[in-house]
């Protein structure tokens, strides 16, 4: 080996080193990443929020708990995808819209973990409860920016069209720190909730501040009461960080469909014809947003953001806001096929992860969805496969 060979080798190494590194996954294979069209300043804020959400770990030294469920935001939403039973939340103590009867006994959320030296909570005797698998974060900004008017066009509380579907909003009271959206359509002083399994959360600020407080035991100027002592504490996370995380969640991209093969298109057709799209509405449009990238944009969540009666099998006897215990918000289906990449290679579907496959999840639909589930059951095996392929392509 002469000197020229060695020097040439080194030059090739430096110039071509990226060729020997793992390639980036295709954009449609990932849930994380910003929506396209952010300004440079918005990119900076997105990055700050990304670090706070995915990298900041709480310990006893920086405020964790003392009672908690998880130690970071990213623990519950790995890769911004759906969570795993390891970080499933348990909420308890409310059976109807009269409110939570167990607020003095640790409600509404169970903190079943504690820093050393402290004793975690148990569910009080006789309290009904429900377990909630952490949802994917993807595309939340679009849902946040959806207009009340569009959501209200789909309500049908008395099932006037006779199709068996009667979606209703969860009308909720706003937290004092939450500002109503421009062009909100309140009813009797209450507003349409759109986040959470029961749609009991109004916007991403409430979602974020509540999650810091109830999931990690972190107080903020928005949610200042410590879940263990019940006392108002100094903020353990800054307003800047919360605002950055909210911005991050608002500007995460929407999932990108991964294929449009013939079988998937046939599955899509079946999805519409058997009636899934009556609740899992494919298309929505955002209203006005100060973030240009999500201002008046069409998006494809496969949800109507309304509550529906899902039948007794899914009635845990627990609820939030004005929802009945058997009512659940239609979960967006976008990103469904990538759930396995954040749930450890498996599916944990429905509100509490009890469904271990898409087929099982469909069969768990009841109540308003009875007829649609029956329609699914009579499909041929090939048709079911195509329908599931379509759902996994979202």
């Amino acid at each position, binding site marked *: 080996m002469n000197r020229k060979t060695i020097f040439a080798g080194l030059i090739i*190494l430096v110039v071509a080193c990226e060729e020997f590194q793992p390639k980036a996954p295709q954009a449609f294979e990932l849930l994380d990443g910003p929506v396209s069209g952010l300004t440079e300043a918005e990119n900076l804020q997105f990055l700050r929020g990304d670090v706070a959400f995915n990298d900041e770990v709480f310990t006893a030294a920086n405020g964790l708990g003392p009672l908690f469920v998880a130690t970071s935001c990213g623990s519950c939403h790995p890769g911004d995808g759906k969570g795993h039973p390891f970080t499933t939340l348990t909420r308890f103590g409310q059976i109807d819209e009269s409110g939570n009867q167990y607020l003095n006994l640790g409600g509404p959320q169970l903190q079943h973990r504690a820093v050393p030296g402290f004793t975690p909570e148990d569910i009080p005797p006789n309290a009904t409860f429900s377990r909630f698998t952490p949802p994917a974060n993807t595309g939340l900004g679009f849902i946040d920016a959806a207009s009340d008017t569009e959501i209200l066009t789909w309500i049908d509380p008395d099932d006037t069209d006779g199709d068996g579907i009667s979606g209703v909003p969860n009308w909720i009271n706003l937290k004092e720190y939450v500002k109503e959206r421009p062009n909100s359509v309140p009813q009797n002083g209450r507003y349409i909730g759109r986040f959470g399994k029961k749609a009991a959360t109004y916007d991403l600020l409430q979602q974020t501040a509540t999650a810091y407080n109830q999931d990690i035991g972190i107080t903020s100027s928005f949610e200042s009461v410590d879940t263990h002592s019940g006392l108002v504490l100094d903020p353990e996370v800054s307003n800047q960080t919360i605002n950055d995380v909210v911005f991050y969640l608002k500007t995460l991209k929407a999932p990108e469909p991964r294929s449009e093969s013939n079988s998937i298109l046939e599955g899509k057709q079946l999805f519409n014809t058997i009636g899934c799209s009556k609740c899992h509405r494919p298309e929505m449009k955002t209203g006005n947003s100060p973030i240009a990238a999500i201002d008046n944009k069409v998006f494809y969540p496969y949800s109507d953001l309304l509550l529906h009666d899902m039948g007794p099998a899914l009635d845990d006897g627990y609820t939030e806001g004005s929802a009945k215990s058997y009512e659940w918000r239609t979960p967006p289906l976008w990103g469904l096929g990538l759930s396995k990449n954040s749930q450890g*290679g498996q599916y944990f579907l429905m509100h509490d992860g009890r469904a271990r496959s898409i087929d099982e999840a469909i069969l768990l639909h009841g109540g308003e969805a009875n007829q649609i589930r029956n329609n699914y059951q009579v499909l041929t095996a090939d048709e079911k496969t195509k329908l599931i392929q379509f759902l996994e392509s979202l």
Partner: protein
Amino acid sequence: MKISLLIVVTLVMCSPTTAQVDSTLFKRTQQDTSKLLLNMDAVYNRPFLSVSKLPVAVGGYVEANWQHLGTDGVSEGHQFQMKRLTLFIASTISRRIKFLSELEFEDGTKEINIEFASIDFEFHPLLNFRGGIVMNPIGAFNQNHDGPKWEFIDRPISATQLLPATWSNVGFGLYGKLYKNNWVYAYETYLTNGFDDQIISNSENKTFLPASKLNQDRFEESFNGVPLLTAKVAIRNKKFGEVGLSYMGGVYNKFLEDGLVLDEKRRHRTWAIDFNTILPSGTYMTTEWTVTRVDVPSTYIQQYGNKQWGGFFDVVQPVLRKNIFGFERSVLNAVCRFEYVDWNAGDFIETGDNIREDIVSVVPGISWRPNAQTVIRLNYRYNWQTDLLGNPPSKTSGFQFGFSSYF
């Protein structure tokens, strides 16, 4: 801190003096070239420079590198790193009383540590007393970690992510050796300050013994008043190589403060086995595997595992011994390292599935030693790291190039 300041001041004061000394007066101390050296001998088996008949010898090593790594298509580009500048000062106070210190600047001045500063009293070859800042003899790498002795740019993942290499503490202990024909038997045991509760409460979000290195007070006071016991036995044969078995254990939490009970005593225990040998073909093999158990409260979070294990296996094959670029008897090696670390060996309570949080790494490369004290290394690293839940692994790979040399 005071000791480090003293050493720095001494070095600064000495520098103008040595500048006026005829360099021909410097001489290298002889290194033991027998085949009965153990990893525990590494602290003294280094090239030192002594001046004339001064009883003080100095030495050190430096290592720097370039790397270009990427993870799943995202790269931070070209990185130049000053990994370490380490200074040794040794002194023979009398024939059987010795002093040795090692001051390390890591990543520039990001970490400045006294890694070793102890006085050894030899009462008998089998009974030596060592006190001061000592390197806890857990595994082999922690004792024998000088960059120029290794053919790989990065330290083994298990040595820095399971064990906290370089892990040293204030304490006292005994060591000794017994030579018999082609065999040498040795032991070391120390009581030192130990770990703290950061091992289960840290920004890594996993059980992480190295987190206790952040405790700047550990050279001044024990976190909980319970000494850390570290003990090792090793045996070496001229033909077959060296095997070491070591243990390190203690209490990591503060269970009592001002007489008030805060928690029960929570223990951690680490066992390690190491082995190295040279095959007749000249192939050098070294390996070290370690298991740690930590008493994590059941009401805490499984993210912090109560068992972790891992290790590495290095193979170094000399392929060329010749004059290269005018360096006579220089050696070119083909090298490969296999590494595995599982930070959280256990199953989820919720699902019964295996908790992952592991990494597999393969590092092939070449190294060139123009002389015994200097190594120039080119490594290609490929890591597969899987998160707690077992989601698709993130892949990291890229080239690293650098040198490490005693001076």
